């Protein structure tokens, strides 16, 4: 036990954890969006985000700035998400949950395969969105990149929240997710609301991918697989049906995983993913509804 605890290190590691957690939160929100509207965990969400990231890479490669590519990719991903729902999910809209799960698994391999076919298997880099310089806050040095990632993630989540809370279409989308029958009776095109959900989820996934890639020395088609697991753990921790829970759960998980990796020697960097899996297992055993989910009892 050291005599003087290093508070600076704790603050730094917490912010680093929040930065990863924020990125996971955007993908976790995507999982929640699909879960609430379609009723399944979309196993292909990470691969869709990876595909978006490769689109961004291509745009940057053709001379666009990072931010121009960022916003253009979000728009393309939204359209692609809608298209995926219309073509792949719509035919199984009324099928049993297991069928839909298997379709998303198929989608996983399809998207992964397509990305390998389009983009050769060399490793790539995406430029940094933010300066990698540190910034001094109250005597502690933080990386601008980490703070930027936190800011962008929270902004994306915040915009999504505003959309659902304050627009007519957002209201209709929420209604369609909780009570499709009654929503149809007021004229809501429920099926299109589902497609909208997939579009928004794909857009959020694109954000997570485009924030994940620049932090890595290089990336390939497996880029988003660990991120999907972390996002899933975050969503489960917060409650897979709760958007707020997904954000809080992911942020908590980000900090927890990073601190435990920092302070517990034998975990270090190598065992972070198993820690996330342990969190999934623990939550499902102890409190299946998650932090923000409704404890047990579902409406029947």
């Amino acid at each position: 036990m050291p005599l003087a605890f290093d508070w600076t290190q704790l603050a730094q590691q917490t912010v680093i954890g929040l930065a990863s957690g924020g990125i996971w939160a955007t993908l976790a929100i995507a999982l929640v969006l699909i879960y609430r509207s379609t009723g399944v965990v979309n196993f292909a969400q990470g691969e869709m985000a990876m595909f978006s990231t490769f689109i961004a890479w291509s745009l940057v490669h053709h001379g666009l700035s990072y931010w121009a590519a960022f916003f253009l990719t979000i728009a393309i991903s939204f359209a692609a998400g809608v298209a995926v729902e219309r073509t792949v999910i719509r035919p199984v809209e009324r099928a049993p949950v297991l069928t839909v799960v298997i379709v998303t698994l198929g989608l996983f391999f399809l998207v992964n395969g397509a990305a390998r076919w389009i983009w050769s298997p060399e490793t790539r880099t995406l430029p940094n969105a933010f300066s990698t310089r540190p910034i001094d806050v109250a005597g502690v040095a933080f990386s601008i990149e980490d703070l930027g990632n936190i800011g962008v993630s929270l902004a994306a989540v915040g915009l999504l929240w505003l959309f659902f809370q304050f627009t007519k279409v957002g209201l209709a989308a929420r209604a369609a997710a909780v009570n499709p029958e009654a929503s149809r009776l007021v004229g809501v095109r429920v099926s299109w609301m589902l497609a909208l959900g997939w579009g928004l989820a794909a857009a959020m996934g694109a954000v997570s991918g485009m924030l994940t890639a620049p932090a890595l020395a290089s990336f390939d088609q497996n880029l988003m697989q660990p991120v999907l697991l972390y996002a899933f753990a975050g969503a489960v921790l917060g409650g897979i049906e709760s958007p707020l829970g997904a954000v809080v759960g992911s942020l908590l998980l980000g900090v927890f995983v990073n601190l435990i990796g920092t302070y517990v020697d034998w975990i270090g960097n190598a065992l972070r993913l198993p820690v996330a899996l342990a969190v999934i297992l623990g939550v499902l055993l102890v409190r299946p509804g998650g932090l923000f989910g409704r404890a047990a009892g579902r409406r029947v």
Partner: protein
Amino acid sequence: MADALLELEDVEARYGPVKALNGVTLSVGEGEVVAVLGANGAGKTTTLRAVSGTVRRAGRIAFAGGSISRKSPEAVARLGIAHVPEGRGTLTELSVRENLRLGAYVRRDRKGIREDERRVFGHFPWLERRGDQRAGTLSGGEQQMLALARALMLRPKLVLLDEPSLGLAPLVVAEIFRIVRELNEQNGLAVLVVEQNATLALEASTRAYVLEVGRVAVAGESEELRRHESVRRSYLGY
């Protein structure tokens, strides 16, 4: 019935292999309140669902001159038919105000929507005070009134009202029927109401149909049906 607003001719409907309607023919005129009576399982609810498109149906269904027999529920709603389903169809996760906003979802006239909101608050003053409350926390009677209020926000030409009295206290039921009558008299709203409580339904309506095993057994003026021997014995209980 020169200008029928809604016309059903030989309408059949089925839930999977089970046939629920065996050729129902009925009509609702402009500004008319029409009741559908019958025992459990006679096809009352299914008749409404056939109109709104929430059950698979065949036969001719015309609304305001156009066929709606192949239209989806959302398309039917967009034509101005508001269905208040059995079990109320309140969106319990949303607030009272959000339920009302959703009722006006297909409309584009902001001014008209605000007007209708005021009108609805006139009928149900407590809705305004409790706008931010989650609809699921309302009592059964309040949810039924909210469902009706939500239906009115569509500014419908026709309201399909399914068992408004189900599980509610007599006073609340009387209140709901009073409001329905008021809407009909003031705004010429046409209503097709399904009701177990035949006494109430025959008082509130001008005409009525009695269904038996998926087809119309008796039809006529509500006044007449109240004196009708077999209707009285089977449904009014005296």
